[in-house]
């Protein structure tokens, strides 16, 4: 008999695929058959569609209806296909102009009364629709602000199925319904913290600025109460605002990770601090059915802070090695895989020993040497080797606390320096950092007199080849922070200190 067609979006990770939905209104006894690898929540779509259609002033055809979601091999999850399925059926029965329905992408979950509920991941779905060449997309009214963040595509927010039918040109009575709004995001606390809260640790603050400027990973080692968490939180404050591309990526991940509505683009880098009992799946992402982004993806373009790093399971820390290297994470399932961005700045914090007092003046460590050694040994070499800046953080004395004379850097000032340093690096290197060989022996090779100390350290075996390359990178960042065009011998010296500070 007749076939109705439309399109929707299936998300796997952050990338979306256009899904063609066709509804065949065949002869036969009344039945609604859904094929094309639906999961459980999508399978239940049949019953939501049936009720929503009946309660919107239309009728399900009393015949056999076969709904196919293609490509049939792509697994499809969730309730976001309801609207498209209902409209494909009604286009098949010619209750709604078929051409209009076919030329539009639809996302939305149906409530039994015909209203349309917001769904998670609308932002990446709208982006995917635009990339796939769609011109119009119909989204739940509750996801309106989020969908409208995407330029160059016509967004049609609809509150109910009847409303959607009317938009497509059906002559149908639309009663005013209250759009279903997603749960409200609790208002983020305006950060009252400032870099100038940190007292008596000017060299650590300096290291923080360097890390922010060069995007270097950091390791903070110090006794409890020295202010490691305070420092890590302030690192994200001094990072520059996200550019348009990164902002869209961060907002997409946030949209996918929770159902809360994204009212505007996230323009500040995220700060994610998972507890040390987190599992590998919680950190890198995964889950049964729908693959969800983990902490490393939610922190992408921002800071991932692992407090009490040695307390994390070794497998969890080691799972971070690959995403730290490649900047993204691919999670594989038997029949598909999902890719998430994972470009984080990692900050690890640790006590020097289980009791926390090793190396602290006026206190006694009660740990045996073996326990102390085992404690930090839980941070594997490969992880520590990827961390450029190692900073010892010491407890602040009373003298520092009441010292109001020495100047302290404010967040605003530090961020200015970071922005300026990044601008310099960007002018020189563009968006992509140069290969290590280019720094060592290519265009950016430094004069022998500048790197003499570093060469000597390499000859002695005090630094590894990877360490050598990392030191060069840090030196360039230090030079950018100081506004000097090339690293000097002093920058190299400071870079060596930052890289090896903890062990010195």
């Amino acid at each position, binding site marked *: 008999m007749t076939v109705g067609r439309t399109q929707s979006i299936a998300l796997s990770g952050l990338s979306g695929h256009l899904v063609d939905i066709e509804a065949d209104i065949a*002869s*036969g*006894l*009344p039945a609604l058959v859904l094929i094309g690898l639906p999961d459980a929540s999508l399978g239940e779509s049949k019953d939501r569609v049936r009720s929503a259609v009946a309660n919107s002033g239309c*009728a399900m055809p*009393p*015949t056999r209806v076969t709904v196919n979601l293609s490509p049939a091999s792509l697994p499809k999850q969730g309730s976001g296909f309801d609207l498209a399925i209902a409209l494909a059926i009604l286009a098949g029965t010619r209750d709604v102009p078929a051409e209009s329905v076919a030329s539009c992408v639809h996302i939305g979950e149906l409530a039994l009364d015909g209203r349309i509920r917001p769904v998670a991941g609308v932002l990446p779905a709208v982006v995917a629709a635009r990339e796939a060449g769609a011109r119009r997309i119909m989204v739940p009214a509750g996801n309106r602000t989020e969908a409208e963040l995407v330029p160059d595509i016509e967004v049609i927010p609809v509150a109910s199925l009847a409303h959607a039918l009317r938009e497509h040109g059906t002559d149908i009575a639309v009663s005013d319904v209250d759009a279903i709004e997603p749960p409200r995001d609790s208002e983020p606390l305006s950060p009252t913290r400032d870099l100038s809260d940190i007292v008596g640790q000017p060299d650590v603050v300096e290291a923080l600025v360097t890390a922010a400027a060069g995007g270097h990973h950091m390791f903070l080692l110090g006794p409890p109460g020295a202010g490691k968490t305070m420092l890590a939180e302030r690192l994200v404050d001094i990072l520059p605002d996200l550019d348009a591309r990164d902002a869209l990526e961060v907002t997409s991940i946030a949209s996918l990770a929770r159902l809360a509505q994204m009212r505007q683009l996230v323009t500040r880098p995220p700060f994610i601090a998972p507890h040390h009992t987190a599992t590998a799946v919680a950190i890198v992402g995964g889950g049964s059915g729908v693959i969800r982004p983990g902490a490393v993806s939610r922190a992408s373009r921002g800071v991932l802070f692992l407090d009490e790093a040695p307390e994390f399971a070794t497998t969890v820390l080691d799972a971070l090695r690959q995403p730290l290297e490649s900047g993204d994470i691919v999670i594989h399932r038997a029949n598909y895989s999902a890719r998430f961005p994972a470009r984080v700045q990692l900050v690890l914090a640790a006590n020097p020993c289980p009791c926390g007092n090793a190396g602290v003046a006026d206190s006694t460590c009660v740990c045996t040497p073996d326990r102390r050694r085992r404690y930090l040994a839980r941070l594997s070499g490969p992880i520590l080797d990827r961390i450029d800046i190692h900073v010892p953080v010491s407890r602040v004395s009373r003298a520092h606390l009441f010292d109001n004379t020495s100047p302290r850097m404010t967040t605003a000032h530090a961020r200015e320096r970071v922005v300026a340093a990044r601008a310099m690096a960007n002018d020189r290197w563009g968006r992509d950092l140069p290969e290590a060989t280019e720094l060592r022996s290519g265009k950016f090779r430094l004069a022998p007199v500048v790197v003499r100390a570093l060469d000597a350290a390499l000859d002695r075996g005090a630094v590894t080849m990877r360490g050598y390359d990392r030191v060069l990178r840090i030196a360039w960042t230090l030079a950018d922070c100081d506004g000097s065009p090339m690293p000097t011998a002093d920058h190299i010296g400071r870079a060596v200190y930052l890289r090896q500070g903890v062990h010195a």
Partner: protein
Amino acid sequence: MALKDELGRWGETIAGDFLIANGYDVLDRGWRCRHGEIDIVARNGQTVAFVEVKTRRNRRFGHPLEAITPAKFARLRVLAGEWCRVHRVHAGTVRIDAIGIIGDGITVGNLEHRVGVME
């Protein structure tokens, strides 16, 4: 006879008339055996159709054809086989049809004939 049964009988009469008007020969009506009842058996050329008739006054409880469940369907299959065995009918094609009628016992509001609803 209960009111609903009267309506059902009326619907079966209407369906039979409809089939005759459309060139079928009605071979049997309300045939019973221990498995249940076949509403109408009709022949059109080489094809024998076993027709289940459902009648409702209105659509308040859904379309009449929606009342034909998979279990009912399976029973019709068995009944069709039984009928063929008893009547020694072997030739031609055997088919199961459904007719849904919406009407009040006097006038027919809607009649739908679904041909070959067997999966």
